[in-house]
């Protein structure tokens, strides 16, 4: 087993691990769950917690059904399910920020039906460029800071926050590097490594990622030395396909790992994404000068908006077209979570823009348990269509 395989296998294990075992695995850290791409991870980290995203699990106890309507997405349903089954009781809390009505509803419901862990909430402005957006978010972050000080019974200093920002900026830089080599990664490694960033303490994740990137870089150099094209080397990628179409994945949070495997099996490779917790999340560093809380607010408002947020200068369709063109993508795969309305509406706008630019696209709907047979047929037919 090579060093990169070893690291990827560690990431994979953590992706499959129940949160019941988190503290045993990382005894020096205190986990705190979160469920939105707008939760300021640094603030929680500076208060002494390790933010862990509540990625949807495959299993559920089914208890959430009693509290949520049938048209609630699996992400929200599974978070409540896991809380009611006791899987999350080791978490110090669960933080929510408005990304959609379903997450909002869950945040409201949580204190009534989940005895432990407690809910924490960050109200996000919707019009990110409105004059009130910055002072509003800043006040909200200040309120959260005070709440965390209350909970931990100690001051949350600017110094601690600056350190947390530096640590998270390091993660961002590493993940950006990961995307730079995405087209050289074996099968679903991009997803595995990305997912781990949301499940592990950053102090543990960062050195492993740095190590992984070094190993991959060494591989690429080796391939170059042998006269192979590291970007398309069939040997390095373990595939018999000579031309592997370059694809972009668009959707909420992180798309299902099955989709990445199906894409790889069909001979394609994911070179970038427009996922709430994907490339957009890591694209910019938080400013490390000036007031740290102000820098966090600026950063949150400057990120590419998710579908329920608005910024007149940061249009998702324009961003997608730029990314597709810069990444020389051959096509786009929409990984839509069933019952996710904001992303459902977003697909229409993005599809229209792609059609105008003659970029082929495919819509795949994801559910609790993906229908692999149909997904394979769709993805393979799409690759056949775009000329694999």
């Amino acid at each position, binding site marked *: 087993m090579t060093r990169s395989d070893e690291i990827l296998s560690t990431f994979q294990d953590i992706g499959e691990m129940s949160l019941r075992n988190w503290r045993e695995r990382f005894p020096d850290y205190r986990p705190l769950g979160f469920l939105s791409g707008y939760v300021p991870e640094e603030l929680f980290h500076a208060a002494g917690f390790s933010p862990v995203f509540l990625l949807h699990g495959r299993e559920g106890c089914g208890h959430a059904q009693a509290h949520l309507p049938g048209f609630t997405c699996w992400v929200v349903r599974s978070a409540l399910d896991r809380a009611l089954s006791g899987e999350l009781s080791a978490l110090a809390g669960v933080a929510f920020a408005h990304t959609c009505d379903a997450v909002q509803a869950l945040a409201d419901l949580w204190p009534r039906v989940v005895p432990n862990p407690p809910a924490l909430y960050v109200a996000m402005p919707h019009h990110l460029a409105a004059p009130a957006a910055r002072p509003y978010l800043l006040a909200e972050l200040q309120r959260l800071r005070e709440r965390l000080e209350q909970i931990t019974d100690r001051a949350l200093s600017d110094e601690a926050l600056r350190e947390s920002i530096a640590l998270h900026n390091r993660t961002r830089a590493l993940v950006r590097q990961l995307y730079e080599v995405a087209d050289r990664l074996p099968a679903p490694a991009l997803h595995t490594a990305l997912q781990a960033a949301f499940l592990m303490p950053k102090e543990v994740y960062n050195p492993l990622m740095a190590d992984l990137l070094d190993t991959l870089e060494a591989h690429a150099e080796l391939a170059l030395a042998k006269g192979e094209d590291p970007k398309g080397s069939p040997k390095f990628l373990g595939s018999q396909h000579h031309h592997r179409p370059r694809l972009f994945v668009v959707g909420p949070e992180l798309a299902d790992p099955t989709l990445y495997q199906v894409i790889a099996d069909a001979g394609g490779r994911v070179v970038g994404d427009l996922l709430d917790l994907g490339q957009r999340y890591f694209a910019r560093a938080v400013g490390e000068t000036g007031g740290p809380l102000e820098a966090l607010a600026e950063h949150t408002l400057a990120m590419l908006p998710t579908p329920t947020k608005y910024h007149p200068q940061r249009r998702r369709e324009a961003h997608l077209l730029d990314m597709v063109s810069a990444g020389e993508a051959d096509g786009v795969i929409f990984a839509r979570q069933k019952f996710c309305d904001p992303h459902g509406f977003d697909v229409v706008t993005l599809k229209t823009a792609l059609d105008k630019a003659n970029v082929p696209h495919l819509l795949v709907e994801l559910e609790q348990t993906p229908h692999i047979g*149909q997904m394979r*047929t769709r993805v393979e037919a799409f690759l056949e*269509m775009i000329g694999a």
Partner: protein
Amino acid sequence: MHYAGVDVGAITAKAALLDDNELVASAVIAAGYNRVEAAREVLAQALQQVGLAREDIARLVATGYGRVQVPNADRTVTEITCHGRGSHWLCPDVRTVIDIGGQDSKGIAVNGVGKVVDFVMNDKCAAGTGRFLEVMAHALEEDLARFAELSLSAQRRVAISSTCTVFAESEVVTHIAAGAPKAAIIAGIHEAIAARVASMVSHIPVREVVMLTGGVARNGGVARMLEERLERTILVLPEAQITGAIGAALFARDG
């Protein structure tokens, strides 16, 4: 030289044999539980018709839901691409293919050389598929051939509003209990399928010539009601059910 295409679907397995010019043999059998055996058997039946052996086949391409289970295939190609290719070979003017199989229904837009330019596929739901017809025919105690005939002879159609096979079946039971004529219920069922497929297909540009392929094409009732819904003539060829297998054989012939 001979080339084979084997299409293993959710309900049936199909084989088509081509020589350098034309279709020389074809076979259709029930796919059953053992897809590997079904693929072997359907190919053997086609070979037998023309007195050939497996060794006489230069290349074999597998397609359909069970494509990976076809033994000794040289490559696999999805049924979407194969239906596009096969329909173009049968009629070069085809621009839209509606393939309704046992488990899936698909709308496929093809260009002037039979290459797929866009497609839509049903969700994981049996409504609008051959399985829906089978379930309904069973509920109404009719075989599939007579089921289609009855739909064409109906004086009126009851409305089946459910888009789900299970709920539609209970709706049918309600109509039976209310004493609706059998033909009217059957016509309503066919209309429900046509409505569902037509709405799905409208996501790709429906351009003439429109061809209906897949096992359900053998059902004249669905074809006629699709024509009504799409306000277009729909071409149904005798090779409708083996179009995917023909497409696969054409890919085998390409090498």
